[in-house]
């Protein structure tokens, strides 16, 4: 997994509530397209017009936000299915960080499994960030719609220079910073797993009568 330390990048506001995983990546794409090629299909229902040309109303299609590596979203981002393809698709379009007031719980976990940082902030702060990004794209603005996410410091720096602190669980942060592989880590705990299972076999033996 690629480590995540500091990300200084263009950020695009996608301020719509309950963007579900069927929007993030439609199931038929997940079925027919290889994992590494999902990028062009991320947000497909919002991103393209019926004739497959770019929908100009979709923020990430707008020149100011082209190549955004950070998405700022509204409540319940990527709610719905467990499909990890939702993370692979946004990674495929270059995104490494999503900031939102709340996330679909399985998507949230899947992000960490792939080196993507989901940042949960109070809605007012998310709205403030989105507001600054939009302001930065207006004519005459002398800033750019960029954010700096520092995982070591746990801060997001806004175009105005304002810094917002965020929380991220210690073990998730550690894994992201170092790019650790969770399966490899857990395999080193095999003796503990075996001991636990031996105990469970004794106290709840019916769970192990499966044949």
């Amino acid at each position: 997994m690629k480590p995540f330390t500091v990300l200084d990048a263009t950020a695009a506001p996608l301020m719509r509530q309950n963007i579900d995983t069927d929007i993030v990546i439609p199931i038929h794409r997940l079925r027919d397209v290889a994992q590494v090629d999902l990028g062009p299909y991320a947000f497909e229902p919002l991103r393209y017009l019926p004739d497959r040309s770019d929908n100009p109303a979709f923020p990430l299609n707008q020149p100011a936000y082209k190549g955004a590596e950070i998405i700022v979203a509204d409540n319940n981002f990527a709610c719905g299915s467990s499909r990890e393809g939702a993370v692979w698709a946004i990674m495929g379009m270059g995104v490494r960080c999503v900031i939102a007031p709340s996330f679909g719980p399985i998507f949230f976990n899947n992000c960490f499994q792939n080196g993507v940082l989901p940042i949960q902030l109070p809605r007012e702060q998310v709205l403030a960030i989105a507001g600054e990004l939009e302001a930065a794209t207006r004519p005459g603005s002398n800033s750019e719609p960029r954010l700096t996410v520092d995982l070591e410091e746990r801060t997001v720096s806004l175009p105005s220079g304002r810094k917002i602190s965020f929380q991220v669980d210690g073990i998730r942060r550690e894994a992201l910073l170092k790019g650790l592989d969770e399966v490899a880590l857990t395999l080193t705990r095999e003796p503990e797993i075996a001991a636990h299972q031996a105990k469970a076999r004794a106290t709840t033996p019916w769970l192990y009568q499966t044949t």
Partner: protein
Amino acid sequence: MPGQTLFDKIWERHVIADLGDDYALLHISRHLMHDGGGRGLRAIKDAGLKVRNPDLTFATFDHIISTEPGRTHDTLRPYAQRLYHMRDEARRWGIKLFDLGQPGQGIIHVVGPEQGITLPGTLLVCGDSHTCTHGGMGAIAFGIGATEVIHVLATQSLVQRKPKRMRVNFEGRRPAGVTPKDMILHLIGVVGAAGGTGYAVEYAGSAMRDMEVEGRLTVCNLSIELGAKIGMVAPDERTFRFLEGRPFTPTGAMWDQAVADWRALASDRDAAFDRAVTIDVGKIAPQITWGTSPEHVIAVTERIPDPAASGDPDKQKAMQMALDYMGLKAGMPIQEARIDWVFIGSCTNSRLSDLRAAAEIAKGRKVAGHVRAWVVPGSENIKRQAEAEGIDRVFREAGFEWREPGCSMCLAVNGDTIGPGQRSVSTSNRNFVGRQGPGGRTHLASPAMAAAAAIAGHIADVRAL
């Protein structure tokens, strides 16, 4: 110190190691797999890893199979290879697989409880978000991603953060025509599609105690639509009655020992919850969704809400986009919406009690001429039992199509889709944009309401039939 919740008790007994920050390495007592998640077994092979406990993993085919009568593995050519691969890998590792045409095949969340694989007190995971369904048996059950599946296969454990606890008290008696599906849709309408985010939800109260297990599975199924990965109901005598004698439930002295253990799992009287919501079930009417989020739900007697009436500009925008997508106008009585499709099936509502309820409405009536209506039983066993009861005939005579068990038009990944712009009443759990096929418009409802719509040709109040 306050007492423990049902959730706490089951969580605690699965902790292998405390990792700090409310994280734990958890033992997985049941792992379920479906044909949409064959990647996991391939990855294990590619990484040179081993399946640690094949005896605790169970698999079936549901998502990518055909549901056409007379199907075989090869009916859907593009996926045949995946089915063969999964079958080979399962055999190689010794994972129990319920294959097409065998008792036990079906939608994974229908099969687990039906086979007695899902037991009270287990910690069960599956690479599918509706794994929350199994919580209706008194288990902690949640969906995981593809990488987490590999973690479970290799280590029989998972790293998770302990969620907060929420209790939903459903109190009172269900009025006629109101089903468990209506209860959970109503709840999502009240607290919103993110109302349960960050919580493990326990459904309690007199209406849950009075409910049979199949209904509890329906309620728990939509926990993820509430934003919660986990939904559960304390196991009780109904649970034990449901389980006794199923293929994988314990027997003899082991059964007695298990039941004694399960009786102690219920939340303590003084258990503390981080959030509590009480719903008066007596005030619920049959529900129908009008938009593209399950929180866009109203009683079938209502008019489609006006976005302008919402005080929140972001909500207004979302509502208007949903109305545009759904081809509906604010203020219109929802019953005026003419439909093209009815789908009765999915891990939400494809169990025998669901099919019986829909058949009761269909009996002696006819599906409207412009409507196509499908009934897709949740499992091979349900199909056989329904056929033994003559339910398939009731449906066929009314003009419904009777299909083979699988996910079918709930997810539409197998090509069972509705057309762009077409409108469907579906007993499934997601009315997302394009869920039943690109451009398709989905209204969620109970099996009885879906059957009523099929007959009326438009969204209809089952109580008025």
